[in-house]
């Protein structure tokens, strides 16, 4: 084993940016698979919250149908928020974030990959479960595609904004309440457009316009949020 083969940065041995993202993504997905019980928690939370509304308001589907879109979105937002606390916490404790920041690779890009993993692990399952919850609130089966699309795109934007909040509260003890206080007001446009898209889908109307606005926010988030999250992570390491 040659230890003396010292290399200098930027040489031909370095993997491509694509490989870097793939590795970061694969690491998070593998870890999530090893601790799959944790993945269930936000979904269970989502199911419980949507169950509470009929119990608190009315069991009549005719009474639930008009508020179904709002219920789905508030529940989705809260469960996404619940999952956010875990986004960087372990990586911050075990020094992974430190190694990311000192790898000489773009921290923005690495956090982009991490956020993508987070979305795949929380946003996608939520979007897939949402039509079931909607059905329980009196929504027709035909609304399912609209619900899945709006929640899937909305959770992209939520994960991105949440990543900034999670990174900002890294150095803070008992960060849960603060994380909500930071993230929820900033998420208002997502809830407005998302709930509108879902509502239109439930009514069987075209939901293209709000979904496009949602997608625009997601694209803006994709370009800016990882930058802000990287800045926040660097601050937490100081």
């Amino acid at each position, binding site marked *: 084993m040659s230890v003396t083969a010292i290399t200098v940065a930027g040489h031909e041995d370095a993997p491509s940016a694509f490989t870097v993202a793939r590795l970061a993504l694969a*690491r998070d997905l593998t870890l999530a698979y090893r601790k799959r019980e944790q993945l269930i928690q936000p979904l269970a939370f989502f199911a419980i919250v949507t169950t509470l509304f009929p119990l608190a308001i009315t069991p009549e589907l005719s009474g639930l149908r008009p508020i179904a879109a709002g219920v789905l979105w508030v529940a989705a937002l809260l469960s996404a928020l619940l999952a956010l606390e875990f986004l960087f916490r372990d990586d911050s404790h075990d020094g992974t974030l430190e190694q990311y920041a000192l790898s000489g690779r773009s921290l923005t890009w690495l956090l982009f990959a991490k956020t993508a993993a987070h979305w795949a692990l929380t946003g996608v399952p939520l979007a897939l479960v949402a039509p079931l919850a909607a059905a329980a609130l009196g929504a027709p089966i035909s609304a399912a595609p609209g619900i899945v699309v709006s929640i899937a795109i909305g959770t992209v934007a939520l994960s991105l904004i949440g990543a900034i909040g999670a990174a900002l509260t890294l150095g803070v003890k008992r960060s849960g309440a603060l994380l909500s206080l930071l993230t929820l007001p900033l998420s208002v446009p997502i809830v407005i457009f998302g709930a509108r898209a879902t509502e239109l889908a439930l009514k069987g109307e075209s939901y293209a316009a709000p979904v496009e606005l949602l997608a625009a926010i997601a694209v803006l988030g994709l370009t800016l949020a990882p930058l802000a999250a990287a800045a926040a992570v660097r601050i937490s*390491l100081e």
Partner: protein
Amino acid sequence: MSELSLRAENLHLWRGERHVLRGVALEVTGGEVLQVTGTNGAGKTTLLRALCGLMHPEEGRVVWGGRDVRDDLATFHGALIYLGHEPPLKADLTACENLKYWVGLRRRITVTRIASALESVGIPGLAERLVRTLSAGQKRRVALAGLVLLAVPLWLLDEPTTNLDSEGQRLVGRLIEEHTGGGGLTVAAVHHELAVSPQRLRRLELARA
């Protein structure tokens, strides 16, 4: 390639009220080990974190190869490895996976190379074990394998011998010896004397604020 050197000039750093680094200056060149000692709270960890660019000193600068590291942090980071108090390992990944994901971000790596690195740090059979099942000393050795695999010129080590038995401490000494023998640089914050040959060793004692 010109000779490698790391220089710090007049580093001042405050943590809130505390003036932790008070005009620290140091220089290490290829083939040398700088052993940083000092009592707890003297700023050893802070110094290492300021050297690698995680912390921003309010005054002074760090120079790598004649250039201020702030001018090109990515290149500087590409040339260094920083190991903190805890090995940067995931408990739910195997030793081999940990190294694949950690080292793999920075250079292409194969399972065979990982296996031989683990062998060189004295834990050949542990590649497929989950890190959570390893002892603290074994984890430390996995991190040392990462050090070997990365093969970057500058090592910044915070207490590299923590949790290691006397044989492990000799291993750290040998790794540093080989690394600097090949032209590399090491800055290590330690409580106990490093087991390296005296002609390579330079010392820096930090006094408590």
